[in-house]
């Protein structure tokens, strides 16, 4: 039984991180209609910012996490303003551009620190006697993820800017007619996605390790999560993150660890064939 308890606790913790990653991915797609293949690279940028902040500049991990969010958001803003905005109506060009950016980030990471993974300090040390013993650092990542998700949810639903972002995601034309600058909304979503992905990078780096290829797996999982939940739906992404998170952890624990990545891809294919709009569908289309 303790095996099952710890498996469930692993799945719950991991899923919260997946949700952080997937929400940013779905925001950019839902609002701007851009398939951002550099989303995983932003995780890497966030994690390496924290690594350099702690190991080179000697900051504590909390300050480093804050710096990561700033750098992650700035990275995405610069990428959007400097490149993506000029081609955002050309889906193939955007896919190539964002893919190239993710490769550039990986190569730069390899040049700066090499191919060996690095460790980040834990945000908090020790174990907490809950569910048979949980690492405090993981529990904190889980709790903070939920705080941020709740803030984001409230922000999107109850603030003027949030409502404007939502309106833009429903219809760019309609939003423009009521005076919403869609470009500004796109920029907000890129910044938000950057912030969330960078924070997820810090958590992942702190729980596992920081490495040049660390953004790949979360990006692929994001596809499954977002399609399962319904592209553009934040609620769907959270639910999707938990379904995929549980599927991953249970596959590794009870079936075979080599099937972990495959299980979520099977879900992706099934959803695409059977219910392409996902569990929550899109709120509205352009």
């Amino acid at each position, binding site marked *: 039984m*303790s*095996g099952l308890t*710890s*498996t469930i606790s*692993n799945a719950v913790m*991991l899923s919260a991180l997946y949700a952080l990653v997937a929400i940013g991915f779905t925001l950019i797609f839902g609002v701007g209609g851009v398939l951002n293949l550099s989303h995983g690279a932003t995780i890497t940028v966030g994690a390496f910012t924290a690594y350099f902040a702690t*190991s080179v500049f000697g900051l504590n991990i909390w300050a480093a996490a804050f710096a990561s969010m700033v750098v992650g958001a700035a990275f995405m803003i610069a990428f959007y303003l400097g490149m993506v905005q000029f081609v955002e109506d050309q889906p193939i060009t955007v896919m190539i551009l964002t893919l190239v950016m993710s490769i550039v980030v990986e190569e730069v990471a*390899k*040049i700066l620190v*090499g*191919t*060996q*993974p*690095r*460790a*980040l*300090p*834990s945000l908090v040390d020790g*174990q907490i006697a809950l569910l048979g013993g949980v*690492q405090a*650092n993981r529990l904190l990542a889980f709790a903070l993820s939920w705080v941020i998700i709740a803030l984001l949810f409230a922000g999107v639903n109850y603030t003027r800017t949030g409502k404007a972002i939502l309106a833009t995601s429903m219809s760019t034309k309609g939003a423009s007619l009521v005076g919403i600058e869609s470009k500004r909304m796109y920029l907000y979503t890129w910044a938000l996605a950057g912030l969330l992905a960078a924070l997820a990078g810090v958590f992942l780096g702190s*729980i*596992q*390790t920081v*490495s040049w290829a*660390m953004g790949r*797996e979360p990006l692929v999982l994001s596809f499954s999560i977002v399609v399962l939940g319904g592209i553009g739906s934040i609620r769907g992404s959270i639910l999707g993150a938990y379904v995929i998170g549980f599927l991953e*952890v249970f596959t*590794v*624990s009870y079936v*075979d*660890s*080599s*099937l*972990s*990545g495959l299980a979520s891809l099977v879900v992706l294919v099934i959803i695409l064939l059977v219910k392409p709009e996902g569990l929550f569908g899109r709120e509205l289309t352009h």
Partner: protein
Amino acid sequence: MVNEDNSRTGRETDGNESGVSSGTLSSPSRRRAFLGSVGAAAAVGLAGCMGGGGSGPSGAFKIGVLAPEPSKNPIGSSIANAAKYAATTLNENDGVLGNDVEVVVKDTHEDPATGKSKYQELTVGEEVDFTTGVFTSEVMLNLMDSIAEQSTVHMNAGSATPDTAKQVKADYEKYKYYFRSGPVNSHYLGQNMIDFADAKFSDLGWDSVAVLAEDYAWTEPVTSVLEDKLAATGVDVPISKRYASGTSDFSPIYDDIESSDADAAYVVMAHTGTSAIVQWAKQQRAFEFGGIHVPMQFPSYYGSVNGANRYAVVQNSATPNAAVTEKTMPFNEGYYDQFDSYPVYTGYHTYDAVMSYVNAATAADSRNADDVIPEIESQSFTGTAGTVSYYGQDQAYPHDLVYGQDAAWPLWFQWQEGDGSGSQTTLWPDELASGSYQKPPWV
């Protein structure tokens, strides 16, 4: 930035590389280098022109080095730098057979196809005397036919698969150009884990261990030996698991080990090792940790994982602070003086590989591979990581480095903390021990 792919080191004067500059690459050589990369057919044709000439290469004595990401990966840089250091020491002693020694490094990118094309560039384009290096077993296996076609000796320094020696066994005439100077092949790496278990587990208090191996080709012979022999040493083995190569979250696996009440995880890891050790330490798992763990062999590892490797026990060929032979420490010091860092195991083996070939070529007084091979086969000399000698044709792994107490005999160390930084404290063999085992305080 230096392009390692074309980096060369020759006789050093005034601290500059002067053996060969890019300007001395004659245009025919450039053309040959180009031809070498266009395809196997051209390569075979050119090999036919080159081979069987009887006299072997002429001019500068060239060492062709294949290394993975030599500017980014410590394994690759140790291969490249050890070959350069060997060239430096040889040139200080009048070179080889009266010729200056040059080193040409090519990057395999750990990719079999790239490795093959770079090998062709070295042998056909650069016309090197012999090649050395290669870390990834898949790259090494893909080179075996090219080595046979080029009739140029390759001294493997890094990859551990025994399948290469099996090819030598199956067709000696074709594959006799292949030798492994280190490490011992993965069958013997597994045997060494058995020997360590036999000698030290009772001292460590490990009555029960969970075997954990990453699912890569190189670990298969190791786990096969462990499955056959580990239980016979008297240790209980409740779990023997080969986990997926892409594993990044070890929590589920560690939960299983804790549930089994194993005293330690006895591991076989290279590519996934850092995630595994960092999560073990951060989660303060209730079992000890030891085995083959390639990243933990890196002398500078402690800093890069914030000391997560403290208390882990690791097998290695040689370390910066253990005098495995009388040549180990002078090598460590000379290497450090030249590169401002210490090598990982591939460095010791590459240096031994170069010296092995040079000793044989000198004894044969020839640069022709067919003259040098019998000398390599019969040689036995003290290297930096043990005595270098090779198994004969009638043995299970012909041309592989001989394993044993009087031959290549890996050491085991524990990462311990001293003065705020990590040190590799040797535990075994006893004559090299520099301290005793420390149990992780949370176990």
